[in-house]
């Protein structure tokens, strides 16, 4: 950040930040997908008292300002908090580290992953599971052969949404990670830094890159979903 203009001729695009963003998105998705699917399926199939509270918690990151979430994460994982102290005794540093970004990003993406998958599971007619049971299928066979193929379009769009959303995340990342090149400086942060440094050309290119990547991913997922659902 000290002398951004010096290397801007060669490095109009901050490739390090881009690869960090891609890595963050991939790790977030990989960590969030299995428990997210379980949570989504559980919420779709189970009725219980106080379910609305769990559902509200799931949606909360969607309505909360990212800085608020980032602030609480920083406070709870920082060195001053008991949790942060305990973690650092275990040798785990979260604040201003990539691992901290992953934790923040996983929490922040819960609604983006869980909600579309939950809707997809809810759309599976209940009697298909019963029909599978009467056909002699166990829970695993039912999941692989019946549920997964039917919810797959929903899972696919949830995955794309989560990935793209992580690529572009700014507030939480800034609060939790700061802007350490190679560790916590993602593409969105890098764009912000360049704008602050009046390096409009570079900000321009990186913003366009992010825009195109997001558009491409979302369009591809819509295309795939429409092809999958047209067959029914």
């Amino acid at each position, binding site marked *: 950040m000290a002398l951004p203009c010096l290397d801007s001729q060669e490095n109009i695009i901050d490739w390090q930040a881009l690869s960090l963003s891609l890595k963050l998105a991939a790790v977030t998705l990989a960590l969030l997908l299995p428990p997210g699917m379980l949570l989504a399926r559980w919420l779709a199939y189970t009725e219980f008292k106080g379910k609305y509270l769990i559902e509200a918690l799931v949606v909360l990151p969607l309505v909360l300002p990212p800085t608020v979430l980032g602030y609480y994460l920083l406070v709870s994982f920082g060195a001053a908090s008991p949790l942060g102290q305990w973690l650092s005794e275990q040798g785990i540093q979260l604040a201003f580290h990539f691992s901290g970004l992953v934790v923040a990003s996983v929490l922040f993406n819960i609604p983006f992953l869980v909600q579309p998958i939950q809707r997809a599971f809810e759309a599976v*007619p209940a*009697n*298909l599971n*019963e*029909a*599978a*049971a*009467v*056909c*002699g*299928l*166990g829970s695993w*066979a039912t999941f692989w*052969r*019946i549920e997964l*193929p*039917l919810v797959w379009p929903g899972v696919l769009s949830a995955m794309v949404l989560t990935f793209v959303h992580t690529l572009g995340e700014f507030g939480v990342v800034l609060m939790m990670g700061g802007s350490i090149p190679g560790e916590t400086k993602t593409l969105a942060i890098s764009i912000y830094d360049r704008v602050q440094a009046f390096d409009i050309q570079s900000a321009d290119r990186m913003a366009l890159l992010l825009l195109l990547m997001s558009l491409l991913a979302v369009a591809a997922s819509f295309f795939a979903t429409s092809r999958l659902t047209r*067959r*029914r």
Partner: protein
Amino acid sequence: MTTGTNENNSLGLHVSVSQHLPMPLQGSFSCEPGQMLALVGPSGAGKTSMLRLMAGLLKPSQAKVQIAGEIWCDTDQGICLSARQRLVGLVFQNYALMPHMNAIDNVSLAMLHLPVKARVHAAIDWLNRMGLTPEQQQRLPAMLSGGQQQRVALARALARQPKLLLMDEPFSAVDQMSRRGLYTLIADLRRDLHIPIVLVTHDLNEARQLADKLVVMDAGQVLQQGTPAHIHRSPRNARVADLVGIPNRFHGRWSGAQGPYPAPQGYAWLQWLFSPQDTQGVHLLVHDKGRLKKQNQAVTWVIQGDGLSVHDHAPDVISNPPSIALTARLTSLRSLGEISLATLVLDKPAGCQMQLTLSGSWRQHLQPEQTVAVHMDCSWIHVMPVRDEGQSSS
């Protein structure tokens, strides 16, 4: 531990259930191999719950389900097999075919214990038997008609070689033309399969046409079971008569032996009243089955169409004593094709309405508002006590 294991050792299906919560479900019935039993009753009567209980999709608080000597559920012994442990074929009301699988894959799903090749081969066999063309067998359910989907669902239910076949309103979403084809198909299957078949339906005509045995249900209770002819002729109570749609149901008072003259041995007097409050009425001599003990108790009674005939003129001689001739006015006559539905209003008991079906060419000459003679053979009369709540007579 030995209680009840040997009391029903026949090869058929035996079900008995007695639960109050979460929904009331009471009664017992049985069905022999090769027999088709129809559960009938209005919506909400518990027919589908009874079916789900047999399939293992509903866990009863107290019930016993036994088939071919095997216990599927006995809450007293703490046994209740899950649906996938029972060899049961179930055809769902809206078929519940897997939307992402073609017909062959849907049927194969019931045979996952076989190797893939054998599975597909058997599935094609079943679908051929159901009359689906090879091209239709490759289609997804959404690309098949209701009747074709029904055939796929039936093939899937049978592919597992079940010990019991259950069908939930199997023809409700199928048009009249396909329905006839399916009736024939099921009649053929019944001959070959030799397993108990239970059908849920609210269509009484369908039940009478297909089933050997009816189980009439209402509000979760089994009210009566028997052959369609038996239930139609002798419904156990007024509610059953209502549910199976017996049109000619009348009020009356049971007079026992006392009437215009003492009733002969084996007969009793029934006073036919327009309403329960009436005091005057027509005296009918009916068979006394010894079930009604109280004299002057209020009763309802039915007469099946076979006991009634309509004539242009009163017959000259009335042959056997338990028959009477009545005069009536024809109020409406609707032609249903081969038969006509006639509504009559009787002169005595004044205002009583009667409905019957007429056939033959002479019905074409009848005119509304015409006076006709009705010949009633009282041996077709079935008398029921007015139902006391919570008490069922046998």
